[in-house]
């Protein structure tokens, strides 16, 4: 138990250290350029950027921990924004109904993903690529342009802020807190690590692995639904075009940047939040310094590869000590 806590802490701490480093270097670079990274406008920009990727990345963390993947979240979010906007239809009274409808639809998509992976034994990459394509075809055929109307009351979710902290970022942090609690303190949360570590061992240890996979995917789908709600609140309407931004790749990048192993069984939501924040800080720094947006893509690619290469180096030392075994033993 103790070894587990210290290793988990040190690796999460390392990521937050990296975040602090990025903030310091970014702040210095902006200062040299004659600006101030920590001016209110820039802080707002930074935090606003975290919320959308944040929701998606939190859900993605759960499925990646189970050694699964979800490439459909971008499409789920786009569909959710349409469901939200068309259900609200400009009426503030419809907001609770719309939120319920979005969570239901997004949860069902997640359940479909989970069922295809757990029962039909389809590789998660293919399964979620497939469901993503199915949703894409539906969106392209049914919605030629923006649809629905989001009442002003709900648009507050996209724009209101308390001091310099946007409400959406606060909600994202609350969801992150809930996810951290869920992974650390509930049975299913622990089982997610076990399933990701070794699904066969988990099954033989009496874990209902299909149920765990299904739960992770449903939660991931619902997180994408919340991201869709945020999209609707920001645009004031539902937008099918949202999926062209390839949010799913951003989310996966944030998760692995946050130290969660793509091969499952190791990592956590705290790291993911730091990963999301690192990407947001980089974006804001580029924005403030008015660097070509395409250079951003180049640097983002390099940062992601470099970060994972660093983690891989650490991981090599650790595999010698069989960390997964230690985790399942410590948690059991």
């Amino acid at each position, binding site marked *: 138990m103790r070894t587990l806590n210290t290793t988990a802490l040190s690796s999460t701490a390392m990521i937050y250290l990296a975040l602090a480093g990025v903030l310091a270097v970014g702040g210095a670079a902006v200062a040299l350029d004659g600006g101030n990274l920590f001016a209110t406008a820039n802080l707002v920009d930074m935090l606003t950027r975290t919320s959308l990727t944040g929701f998606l990345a939190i859900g993605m963390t759960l499925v990646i921990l189970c050694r699964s993947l979800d490439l459909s979240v971008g499409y789920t979010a786009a569909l959710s924004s349409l469901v939200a906007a068309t259900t609200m239809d400009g009426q503030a009274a419809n907001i609770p109904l719309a939120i319920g409808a979005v969570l239901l639809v997004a949860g069902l998509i997640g359940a479909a993903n989970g069922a295809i992976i757990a029962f039909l034994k389809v590789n998660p990459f293919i399964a979620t690529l497939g469901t993503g394509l199915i949703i894409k075809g539906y969106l392209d055929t049914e919605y030629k342009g923006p649809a629905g109307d989001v009442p002003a009351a709900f648009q507050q979710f996209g724009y209101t802020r308390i001091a310099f902290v946007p409400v959406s970022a606060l909600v994202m942090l609350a969801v992150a807190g809930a996810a951290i609690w869920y992974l650390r303190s509930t049975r299913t949360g622990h089982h997610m690590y076990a399933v990701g570590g070794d699904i066969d061992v988990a099954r033989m240890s009496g874990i209902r692995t299909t149920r765990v996979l299904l739960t992770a995917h449903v939660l991931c789908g619902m997180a994408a639904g919340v991201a869709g709600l945020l999209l609707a609140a920001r645009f004031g309407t539902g937008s099918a075009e949202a999926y062209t931004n390839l949010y799913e790749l951003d989310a996966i990048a944030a998760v692995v940047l946050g130290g969660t192993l793509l091969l499952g069984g190791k990592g956590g939501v705290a790291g993911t939040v730091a990963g999301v924040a690192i990407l947001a800080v980089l974006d804001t720094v580029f924005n403030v310094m008015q660097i070509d947006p395409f250079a951003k893509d180049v640097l983002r690619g390099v940062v992601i590869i470099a970060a994972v*290469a660093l983690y891989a180096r650490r991981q090599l030392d650790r595999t010698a000590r069989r960390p997964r075994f230690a985790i399942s033993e410590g948690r059991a």
Partner: protein
Amino acid sequence: MQRLRSAAAALFGGGTGTVFALLIVILAGIFAMNPGFFEGPSLMAFLKQAAPLVILAAGQYFVIVSGNFDLSVGALVGAQVVIAARLIDGEESRTVPVLLVMLAFGLTVGLVNGLITTVLKVQSFITTLGMLLVLYGAIRLWTGGAPTGALSEAFRKVGRHGIDDVPLVGQIPWALLVMLAVGAGAILLMRTRFGRIVMATGDNDLAAALSGARVATVRTAAFVLSGLSATIAGVLIGGFAGVSAQVGEGLEFTVITEVVLGGVALGGGRGTALAAMAGALAIEALFTLFNQMALPATLRPTVQGAIIIAAVAYAARQRTRPAAVTAPATVSPS
């Protein structure tokens, strides 16, 4: 009888044979809708259009069968077309030197992907995702957002033209000949020592390494082959469709779909190059069928998604039954 049964098992067993059954069904569907499709010219036009994807599928096959992914091929195809247009800039005399530059670029991208994956131990999903972002950004950075320049006539010839005045078929496109050459090369390569090591590496890299295979070298070589195939496909697509900023976008997922449809298991160690290329032909034929059924093009992704899930689920069902204990039910590719 025995032979008949084993033939049936090969066709419907969910392995590599199934894709040929699927291809025949789709072609039969096209024939039922439009018998004229199988007359020389329209068949040749179909093959010309499908050739780049078949070539990409051959390259992706090596990467997947060795146990990795290559998500960067779409961006690489786009980069190659933009590089060609910018460097050739309409000058016929520059065609060959620029082709050599493109070849070097494609091989280098493959080599970098391979080295990052094998030496730095970064999962190929992340490596090639990073490479996708880098290529996408770098190309637009270099051209200022929109592609500039123009391709030369000689460059466009391979993608557009062919051997004219052939009896029966009219024109044999160069693209088809390139496709056949690449296909034959891929199939022959899989029969060499190298091919066997690729397969063994994807099946169980530890066992392969313990048997003396140079796992890292073989996996890197697979990425280089993928870079090569993306370069060839880039030449064909550039010649056929011309230059635009969107060339190659999303191609990586289509190609992976096609290879997997061919019965090649993600995670490596299973499937044949021929079936992977047949998977590419099947998907392209399916799109042709949609056109003839006058289905809206926007529905394509939906059917593509449903088919890929169904195909893989079908294959998985067959595989888990006979050997439930030993078969790795959900192998996530690294």
